[in-house]
């Protein structure tokens, strides 16, 4: 093989290599801000040299594969931590909303309404004959029952909002799993030709992270390059090039969204299996925290209504008639706060409020005193706490819970930031670096062109030998 034409050839290939490399640099720069992108690199290899006599002559370089610079182990760790991030985010969001319901720093809350109610009876005890003080008792009682209703309905409102979030999130999950399945297919098609599907893998990694942010998943990549994704323990969302959907819908037994896996058979309720990601956080707030608080409010309302009723029914009203129930007696603890209401008869006629312990004694305030003394009696938690203690403890606990949740969220955010930084330090695009490469390959391109020019001149020289 003629040396000059080999030179020409080496130059040509070098030109092409430089173009490939520059194209990759361009791709990197263009994707500098693309989420989940890993910078790519052209692997340049020197060609096999030709042996000629005692000489080994290099035959230039060729472009091998375009690989992405990426640490799969780190990606997996980020995905796992992202699951906790989603969980903490959802929890902190949900809990901050719950906290507002219990925030009495700035506005009037249940604690104050309860105090007003008992103060109403104290006022009545000052002046049991007066209709004005009786009306005050009614207004205070109405205010208090309304506020019990407010707390419950706001807590329910949070649950409903979380339900809506669940539904949206499940929709997003289904979109993502569909895309993962289609990426599985693309990756398989590309890689069957022994070419790495860099961008598709980046995208799939990113989607797995996004999926993990929403729901707790486990996934594994098979030898064929396909990933299988399982949510919870049993819901196989992506298998090969196929995906299955999740569905959020209320059950017959409960008016709350539950998560169903729509496999091939009948839909299976997988709600209990999901403990991570945003959905895990949402479920935790909705089913544990808020349910717990609802029970506590109900407890308080039930005890208050029952105890007041017990005393009130022993008394005598302004006309010397036997006392009736002050509140509609709640049948059970569950739902007591939302159904709490004054006895209609008393509401319509405040003279039916029984302040006296005996008939025919307009100034008798004994029963009014018993009811107002209820505020300082330990009637909650098996006789260990007053109603105020009980409620204030709730507020303190909500505050502590929110504080902890926000702290966990912050520290998780730090973990994520650090991991993302490490990822960027490995896979991120640096403009300086790409610019340097650009200059480097441009020079290479330049030099290769000069080589071709030189070879061309050498050919000319050879061809013009005769004329010389």
């Amino acid at each position, binding site marked *: 093989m003629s040396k000059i034409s080999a030179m020409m050839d080496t130059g040509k290939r070098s030109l092409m290599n430089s173009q490939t490399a520059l194209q990759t640099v361009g791709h990197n720069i263009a994707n500098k801000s693309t989420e989940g992108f890993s910078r790519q690199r052209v692997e340049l290899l020197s060609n096999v040299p030709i042996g000629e006599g005692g000489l080994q002559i290099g035959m230039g370089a060729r472009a091998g594969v375009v690989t992405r610079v990426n640490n799969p182990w780190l990606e997996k760790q980020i995905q796992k931590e992202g699951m906790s991030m989603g969980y903490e985010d959802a929890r902190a969001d949900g809990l901050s909303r719950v906290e507002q319901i219990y925030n009495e720093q700035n506005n009037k809350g249940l604690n104050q309404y309860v105090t007003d109610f008992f*103060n109403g009876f104290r006022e009545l005890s000052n002046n049991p004959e007066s209709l004005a003080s009786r009306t005050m008792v009614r207004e205070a009682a109405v205010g208090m029952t309304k506020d019990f209703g407010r707390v419950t309905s706001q807590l329910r409102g949070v649950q409903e909002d979380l339900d809506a979030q669940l539904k949206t999130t499940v929709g997003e999950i289904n979109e993502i799993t569909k895309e993962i399945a289609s990426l599985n297919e693309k990756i398989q098609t590309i890689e069957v030709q022994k070419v790495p599907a860099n961008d598709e893998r980046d995208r799939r990694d990113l989607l797995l992270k996004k999926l993990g942010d929403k729901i707790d998943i486990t996934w594994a990549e098979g030898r064929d390059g396909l990933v299988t994704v399982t949510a919870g323990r049993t819901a196989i969302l992506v298998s090969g090039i196929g995906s299955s959907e999740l569905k959020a819908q209320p059950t017959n037994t409960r008016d709350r969204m539950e998560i169903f896996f729509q496999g091939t058979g009948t839909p299976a309720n997988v709600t209990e299996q999901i403990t991570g990601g945003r959905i895990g956080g949402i479920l935790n707030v909705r089913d544990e925290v808020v349910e717990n608080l609802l029970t506590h409010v109900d407890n308080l309302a039930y005890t208050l209504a029952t105890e007041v009723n017990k005393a009130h029914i022993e008394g005598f009203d302004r006309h010397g008639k036997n006392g009736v129930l002050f509140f509609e007696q709640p049948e059970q603890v569950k739902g007591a706060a939302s159904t709490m209401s004054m006895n209609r008869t008393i509401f319509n006629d405040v003279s039916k409020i029984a302040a006296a312990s005996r008939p025919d*004694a307009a100034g008798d305030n004994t029963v009014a*005193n018993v009811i107002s*003394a209820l505020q300082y009696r330990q009637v909650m938690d098996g006789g260990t706490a007053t109603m105020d203690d009980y409620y204030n403890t709730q507020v303190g606990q909500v*505050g502590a819970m929110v*504080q902890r949740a926000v702290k966990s969220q912050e520290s998780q955010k730090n973990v994520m930031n650090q991991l993302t930084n490490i990822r960027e330090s490995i896979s991120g695009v640096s*403009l300086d670096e790409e610019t340097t490469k650009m200059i480097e390959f441009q020079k290479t391109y330049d030099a290769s062109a000069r080589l071709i020019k030189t070879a061309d001149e050498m050919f000319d020289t050879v061809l013009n030998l005769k004329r010389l």
Partner: protein
Amino acid sequence: MRIADKMAFNQVNQNLGKNRSDMSELQNQAATQKRINKPSDDPLAAARVLAARTEEHGNSQFVKNINNAKSFLEFSDQSLGELSDILVRAKELAVSQSNDASGNAETRMVTASEIEQIYNQAVQIGNRKLGERFVFAGYRTQTTPFDHAGNYFGDDGDMKVQTNKDSFVAMNIPGNKVFLGRGLDGDGIVRPRYETPTTVQDVKEFQQEEINRKEQNEDVERNYLMTRGPASEFQSNGKHKQDPVTGAQGVNLFNVLKGMETSLKANDKEGVQESLDLLDQAISQVVLARSEVGSRVMAVNNTMDSLQKAIVDNKTTASQLEDADAFQVISDINKTDSTLKATLETSGKLIQPSLLDFLR
């Protein structure tokens, strides 16, 4: 470590975000002057603030209760003051008419009519009203307690009001105690229990006690000999035991005055002399009642002092727990502000130049 551009941008974002959120938090503290704006800012303190507020509201109500009780007690005291004044006048008259040196049939007749006026005044005092309530009617505040004959239509209820978490004070003195001396002497009358029922169980027991007490007292009343009428008919029930607590003997003021009037009209010198003793007892009975009222006023005044102190204490506690330290907040704002500016400045430097800027 390799630094990718995104790292720099992320870092700038995070740092600016943190500074801005610190600033907004501080700004909020400055605007509300509160360190705690939601329970999670300091859960323990927030719960304590809430407890302090509850207590404060309770205490303010107790202050109102006390003011109400005080005006009732002071009005009673004032009435009892007048009552004792007229009894003293009656005693003066009795002294002057109890001997023949300063009294004769004619002066006694004249005095009798003054005593009648005093009697009327006593009835009128017994029927005093504060607002719409008869002060000396026990629980039956809507019923005129005394008719002109001195019959009592009230009861012996003590209207108790809560003056502190676990204390109650009676704000009235039932008329039968002051005017009729019932339950003061060893006359067998049982008075209601002193403790205020505070639980349902208590109320039930109390109600049963009251029923028993009523029967018992009715029984005593049935065997009680009325002492109204001519002086010669005057007699007490003969027991004349002193009240073990007060040391006083109960007398019926109306009977005393009526008896004195009768004696005067009948020119019965001995009768008038006897009235003198009885008037002494009557005066001490009224003075005793006044001192009881007075000691309650003192008690509520003391409670009032401690309540007002508690209210201030509560406010201080709440304020110490939740108020922002203005100096701290302002200096923190300045600090954060300069940090923010520094971050912005360095961020600008960090982001701006790349190799490209030098390749022109």
